[in-house]
């Protein structure tokens, strides 16, 4: 195993990619229950309103944010000669993703702890 910042970034990119695909299936399953009528949809929706799912939503934000900003990093690498800044760009992608996860996570926690 050749461990480096790039390796961590690469593994995270793969894992978050798979997480996003799995989320998409779950999402379609939940929304798709609407085709079986109002009661079925409400019942399915009630399952995913629990605290466990709220916490998982924060993880989802982290996955989306990291995957998105790592993608932006890759685009910059492809179109500009920024290879001298490769390490800084990995850290920038981590930091920006962490920032957005914190904002989204705090909003979700607020809803969870102090329901309107």
């Amino acid at each position, binding site marked *: 195993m*050749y461990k*480096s910042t*790039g390796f961590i*970034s690469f593994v995270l990119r793969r894992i978050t990619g798979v997480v996003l695909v799995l989320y998409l299936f779950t999402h379609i399953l939940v929304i798709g229950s609407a085709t079986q009528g109002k009661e079925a949809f409400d019942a399915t929706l009630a399952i995913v309103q629990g605290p466990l799912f709220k916490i998982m939503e924060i993880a989802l934000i982290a996955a989306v944010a990291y995957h998105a900003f790592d993608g932006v990093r890759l685009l910059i690498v*492809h179109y500009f000669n920024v*290879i001298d800044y490769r390490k800084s760009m990995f850290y920038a992608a981590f930091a920006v993703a962490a920032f957005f996860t914190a904002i989204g996570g705090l909003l979700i926690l607020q809803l969870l702890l102090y329901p309107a």
Partner: protein
Amino acid sequence: MPDANSLPTTATVRIQRFNPDNDKKPYIQEFKVPLTADTTILDALHYIKAELDGSLTFRRSCRHAICGSCAMNVNGRNKLVCKTPLTREMDNKGRVTIKPLPYLPIIKDLVVDRTSFWEQYLRVKPWLIPPDNVPEKEFRVSPEEVEALHNAETCIMCGACYSSCQVIAMTKQYVGPHAALKAYLRVLDPRDTAPGERLIELSGEDGVYRCHTIFNCIDACPKNLNPTQAIETLRKLAQKRQALEAERAERQKTLALPVKSNE
């Protein structure tokens, strides 16, 4: 380099051993070697082979970082051991861990099977394919054109980049940073007549688009070369292959002419 007086007199070299005849899997063996400020890791390996354990197997040839034989994994990083001082790699307990290049089949101890490395190298046709009208004396290539090739031409084929590549870890079908760098050298060479053919080979499924820009190759290269930039350049050139071929054909009309006096 640390002060010679404060230096410990011995270093502990931890080497991954593997003899396919006797061992089921590799194991770590420790050796104590005498240390001076200018001992390289290769010196330590030589000492072990000569004085402590003659069965230790490793590749080396020139001892001044040009043959590319002695690339090994030192403390988790691929390096040429002949130009790496032992003191620079020691931790505060005076230990250094040496393993063979990762992701390649081990033949014995620190020697790995580099077959896939050379197969991928040959795949890009690493030689120059010159035009038919070879001039009597020399080709006229501009300093700018030579400068563009500078990134690639000092590669010594040590395999440090290849075996640090995460894509190589997953598939040996991938062209690899070393071959991409060599292809870059030939594609950008104004004397080469087959840049289009090379780009077709490189833009396939196992070509340059498979790179995940992990940058391990740049960090591993003992010659400070930049295979990732070569791969990015080849990706862009592969998009406009026909334009490049036309430009090359045009350029080669003046390649064999003498330089004008006003230039």
